[in-house]
């Protein structure tokens, strides 16, 4: 086996040193009934790189890669161009094959990177402090709700109807067990988010209000309004962002009064990867909330020689110290994805991020205008960043998406799929455009959509 350095001679010598006559003797503690005589059945034997490559390559070719078709999907996962040097950075063995930096003297690379990452995220979100990452946006969203209940000592969380339904499901699932109470509603299909409806649901028992920004329909609501209302009732505002690039164009949730800002960082550096691994971002506006935060935190200090250095800090919040009293059970997080994110963000810089955001918005506007010209298609949003909702008159958007796929176009995400076929949303199609979307892509989508909508039969 190409991955196993011990030779049979080594094994013999080592067994002698440990005083065993065969390897079986080292497994004496395994009860008879559980000992296997030979290799497990129904599984293949070892294979060469060549053979494995053929097998995996064949599986990969069974998928349609986003790059192989005009592509307009978003809804929580965004396709952006990642500079080639990002992969160079995350492929450095010293980053790739390191563990969580428990020995800071020989982990300054990871630690300084995390300190820079935390700073970038905090500034992007308009917050004071960000952590070193969580699993993904949806688990970060739940962790925020859990933290809010700790901070406010209240158990009720109010979810905006326009929060990504998968995020809402995660929150509701967890709440089932923690006993927290979740109030949520279906999203109203209208040009702008139902702010007043949401605000009306906030009361004195409310620990937090959870609002997505921009929301699942691509709309951009007035966070400030919600923040004020929440604060008036002593509740926290949790803002959820699934597209960090948007914050290169629109105000940060922190600026608008959000107390906890969480989100998905996948859009920068990480890629689509069929949904994972992704990158959970978590930040708080008020430094005094730091000790209630989940996850790892990297902090600055000095070494015995007086040199600046970095360490993991405030670990008394964490499971390995605090055990059942920890703020979260998370251990392994998304370290390498954080590196990809920070490397991409560093290459962009403030200038590049703003340019990237402007480019996304420009192309999304062009896409929206073009699609609006297609008979049977109407644009829902008044405001959006790089993602918007169109209504397909009298047609099930999910069917349309599937037919478009057969015709070689990845047309978008049918809201009906996300909401489990809720009638009200059946005709809604969420369309996303990024810097990777070409004018030809837009024309192809418009043309194919027109053709498909024309086909009554397909109904």
């Amino acid at each position, binding site marked *: 086996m190409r991955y196993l350095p011990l030779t049979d001679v080594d094994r013999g010598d080592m067994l002698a040193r440990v005083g065993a006559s065969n390897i079986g003797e080292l497994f004496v503690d395994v009860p008879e009934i559980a000992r296997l005589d030979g*290799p497990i059945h129904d599984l293949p*034997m070892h294979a060469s790189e060549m053979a494995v490559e053929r097998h995996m390559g064949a599986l990969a070719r069974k998928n349609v890669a986003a790059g192989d078709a005009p592509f307009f999907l978003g809804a929580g996962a965004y396709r952006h161009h990642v500079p080639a040097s990002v992969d160079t950075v995350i492929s450095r063995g010293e980053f790739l094959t390191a563990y969580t930096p428990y020995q800071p*003297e020989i982990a300054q690379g990871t630690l300084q990177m995390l300190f820079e990452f935390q700073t970038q995220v905090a500034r992007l979100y308009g917050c004071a*402090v960000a952590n070193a990452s969580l699993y993904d946006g949806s688990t970060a969203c739940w962790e925020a709700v859990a933290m809010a209940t700790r901070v406010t000592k209240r158990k009720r969380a109010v979810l905006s109807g326009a929060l990504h339904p998968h995020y809402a499901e995660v929150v509701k699932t967890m709440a089932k067990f923690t006993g927290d109470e979740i109030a949520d509603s279906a999203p109203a299909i209208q040009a702008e988010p139902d702010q007043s409806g949401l605000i009306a649901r906030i009361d004195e028992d409310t620990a937090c209000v959870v609002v997505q920004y921009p929301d699942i329909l691509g709309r951009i609501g007035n966070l400030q309004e919600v923040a004020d209302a929440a604060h008036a009732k002593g509740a926290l505002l949790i803002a959820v962002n699934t597209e960090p690039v948007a914050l290169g164009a629109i105000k940060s949730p922190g600026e608008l009064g959000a107390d906890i800002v969480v989100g998905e960082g996948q859009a920068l550096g990480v890629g689509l990867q069929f949904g*994972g*691994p992704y990158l959970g971002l978590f930040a708080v506006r008020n430094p005094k909330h730091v000790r209630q935060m989940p996850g790892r935190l990297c*902090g600055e200090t000095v*070494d015995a020689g007086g040199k600046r250095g970095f360490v993991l800090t405030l670990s008394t919040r964490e499971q390995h110290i605090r055990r059942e009293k920890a703020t979260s059970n998370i251990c392994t997080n998304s370290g390498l*994805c954080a590196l990809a994110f920070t490397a991409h963000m560093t290459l962009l810089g403030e200038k590049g991020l703003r340019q990237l955001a402007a480019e996304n918005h420009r192309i999304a506007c062009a896409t929206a205008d073009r699609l609006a010209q297609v008979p049977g298609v109407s644009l829902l949003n008044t405001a959006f960043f790089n993602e918007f909702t169109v209504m397909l008159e009298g047609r099930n958007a999910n069917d349309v998406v599937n037919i478009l796929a057969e015709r070689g176009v*990845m047309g978008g995400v049918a809201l009906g799929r996300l909401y489990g076929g809720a009638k009200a949303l059946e005709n809604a199609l969420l369309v996303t455009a990024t810097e990777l979307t070409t004018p030809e892509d837009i024309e192809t989508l418009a043309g194919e959509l027109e053709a498909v909508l024309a086909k009554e039969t397909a109904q």
Partner: protein
Amino acid sequence: MNAPNKSGWKPTSPVLGEAADGTIDSPTTTGNRALMLEEPLLFEIGHADTTGVDLPEVDANAATRLGGFERTGPIGLVGLTEPEAVRHYTRLSRQNYGIDLGFFPLGSCTMKHNPRLNEKMARLPGFADVHPLQPVATVQGALEVVNELAHWLIKLTGMHSVAMSPKAGAHGELCGILCIRAALEARGDAREVVLVPESAHGTNPATAAFANYRVEGIPSTPEGRVDLEALKARLGPDVAAVMITNPNTCGLFEPDMRAISDAVHEAGAFVYCDGANFNAIVGKVRPGDLGVDAMHINLHKTFSTPHGGGGPGSGPVVLSEALSAFAPLPFVRKGVDGELALIEKEERESSRGQSFGRMTAFHGQMGMFTRALTYMLSHGADGLKQVAEDAVLNANYILRSLEDILHAPFADSGPCMHEALFGDKDFGGGLSTLDLAKGLIDEGFHPMTVYFPLVVHGAMLVEPTETESKATLDQFITAFRSVTERALAGDESLKQAPYFAPRRRLDETAAARKPKLAWSDPEE
């Protein structure tokens, strides 16, 4: 940025001179020491108007549809051109230790070699550039990867089913415990207690508490195992589950595992097994044969997906028949036509109607799945069996090569599994496990896990894994013995180790007392 060195430290003199401890404190004006290079913070070298991408200039008068929420003020980010960025991260990387550099025997973390074929496969556009919400007809290959990997995990563990979406071990523990809670509630039998041995990893109690259970300890025997009789005595109608790590965190197999499971089941409770140490028995023992109800598998340990300096991981959970119905959504199901379907909503699925819900936005760690499956296919059933055997042999080799000079609390309990556990007895001059670990750093090794498990004083948990050669183990043993001898002799110089690392010991107390968690411009 004219200052030669932003590391906060300034050279004493440009000529050779030495520091109190007898080492040379770098005599250079830059703070560099040849190939050991200092690197300023990004924010000290970057500029707001510098970028490493070439995008069109922003057209200030372009009409926008942002609802009047344009971000007008500065964001506070800085950029680097590509040459600066590549150098920044390369220099940082060189201040890190990784498996690629040398022996990394971090106990309980299974720091085995990360095959590069796995990295190559995970980067195939057919895997890396696929959206989680594409029509299922366009992602059949991705769903097949999930299915094939599930098949391997079920076969290797002898369990009934597997939940693939958990994002790491702790997330998997939560998945398992929630399945147990759901199963109990489904039979209207709410229980309040989860039993967790003191030697357990911190995520165990944290997880149980998170699921609203009261955590109680399980007594263990002097031999470092679960005390079966004491456990039986404690079991009762209030106990929902017992969380056991097997092989346990002392590196020992629980010989009574089957009896434990029977007792737990008798009491109407479930057995959760922490599978972080599965590497010791993969291909040799199937937890299903030991009565386990739920066990997470850290793909980033046993199946070698890279740790990446803290993640990402992946923690699929294998389940017994009794728990399978409660597994979280989404999951993949093969239709009669061989088409793979992605089940995202309970309503759609009668048989699995009892799913406790959803743990994450999408379908789990696809990027880790492709790597783990590549790893499994490469090793095969025979290779995986060899993995366990070599991992256990390497650990026993280390145990028996050091037990004469280091306190090995369970050396008499028989062979260890994949890790060797030592304690800090008899060190002189107030030296501690920490000093020994730092001494190993100078020797060019990453230290073992220290002060875990909590049941052994000054614990040192050494997990070599199977991907280390005998030559490496021998060199490690030689170095470990020499550092241990220094510790036993009370060699004060160890107190200040490491001497040669990019940094000397760091002041963690200061870091926690006045936390500085983000960079701020000193000029501001």
